[in-house]
């Protein structure tokens, strides 16, 4: 369980990290909380020659709301999100998602940016950022670009991040009006990761669904927005029938993962059942 040798550099600023990344290219890896990367290095699945530690860059760690947008710095830890009073008030979906993630020690160290960049198919954050229709802001040698969450997750452990780029921020519009959110998860009994995880962000007007964001993780090689579910909710009265009809679309067009713990068929079944539950909880919370 000893990784191969490497050189360690703690970057003091985003610019320094970008130039180190430019210099070392594929030989280097960014180190955030290290809670996906270090286990992979111990197994020698990752063997970087240079580790650029970005977790100590102070101005990458923040949660704030400005001009109707919530902004979360990439090095914000799972625990900082879990314990944020601001988020509990304006976007409880994120603290709720955090409480389902790993354990106390993992949440103290792991970061939202590291999790999104890693894009584990069973990670929790991807579902939440998809449901919130968030943008992922990345900094690169040529400046910044913002990528819509549903364009960010490309495939298994693959994102739209390009060589030399650093995930800097997650941002999304502050949920407005009557909002109901929820995250439900079937935890893998050993790893704690999501066998299925469903995040829901509804905005409700006069008992009807004004807009719906539904993100699903664990089911497919990458987390996805369940657009079939969203469409079936839009504009309709949020009664039991609508929710059941909508949830039936949870894995439309998805090639579901099969592993030792759950077959693809079982995952699709869980996706429907847990989407129904997540929707029900979100509707009951809408106020």
């Amino acid at each position, binding site marked *: *369980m*000893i*990784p*191969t*040798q*490497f*050189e*360690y550099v*703690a970057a003091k600023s985003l610019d320094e990290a970008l130039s180190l990344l430019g210099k070392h290219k594929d030989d280097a890896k960014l*180190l955030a909380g*290290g*809670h996906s990367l*270090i*286990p992979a*290095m*111990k197994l020698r699945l990752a063997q970087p020659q240079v*580790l650029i*530690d970005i*977790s100590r860059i102070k101005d990458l760690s923040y949660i704030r709301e400005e001009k109707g947008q919530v902004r979360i710095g990439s090095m914000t830890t799972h*625990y900082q999100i879990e*314990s944020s009073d601001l988020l509990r008030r304006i976007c409880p979906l994120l603290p709720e998602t955090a*409480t389902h993630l*790993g*354990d*106390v*020690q*993992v949440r*103290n*160290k792991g970061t939202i940016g590291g999790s999104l960049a890693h894009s584990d198919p069973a990670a929790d954050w991807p579902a939440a950022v998809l449901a919130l229709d968030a943008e992922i802001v990345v900094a690169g040698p040529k400046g910044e670009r913002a990528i819509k969450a549903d364009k960010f997750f490309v495939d298994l452990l693959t994102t739209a991040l390009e060589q030399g780029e650093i995930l800097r921020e997650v941002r999304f519009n502050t949920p407005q009006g009557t909002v109901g959110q929820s995250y439900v998860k079937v935890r893998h009994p050993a790893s*704690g990761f999501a066998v299925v995880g469903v995040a829901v962000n509804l905005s409700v007007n006069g008992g009807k669904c004004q807009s719906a964001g539904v993100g699903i993780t664990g089911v497919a090689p990458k987390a996805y927005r369940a657009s079939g579910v969203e469409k079936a909710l839009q504009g309709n009265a949020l009664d039991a029938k609508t929710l059941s009809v909508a949830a039936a679309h949870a894995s439309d067009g998805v090639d579901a993962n099969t592993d030792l713990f759950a077959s693809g068929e079982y995952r699709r079944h869980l996706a429907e059942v847990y989407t129904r539950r997540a929707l029900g909880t979100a509707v009951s919370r809408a106020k």
Partner: protein
Amino acid sequence: MKTKINVTVNGVSHQGEVEPRMLLVHYLRDALNLTGTHIGCETSLCGACTVLVDGLAVKSCTLFAVQLDGSKVTTIEGLAAEGKLHPVQEGFWEHHGLQCGYCTPGMIMTAAQILERNPDPSDEEIRHGLEGNLCRCTGYQHIVQAVQCAAKKMKSKTAVAR
């Protein structure tokens, strides 16, 4: 290829040179001889290696010692202030929160973190908080009782202080 670090462990400052790939748990056990921190799985799952870094419970098998330059670490050896057991240690003693004791240092460090954040936890909250710590002996029942006992002790202490 060694890197200089400066780490304060249980109030004592240590300067040294470490290979960047040295895990914190090996630094504590092998370089500093603080063998109270145990290695159960070395795969981030069991929590036996839990220590506090700058007040946060972390698994010391999932950090490199170099990441800690300038940090403060508390291990099980540093929890008893001036020889007086920490309330969580007393709780484990009084309620027999252990059998073989292998998981205990990690359990205690995590429990200390749980109580710092939530002085009055339910049994359910204690169990959720200890999800990252595995015990193959006790069945957890006595561990939960030990943490509840510690919570009471800490509360009565703050009540006296007031």
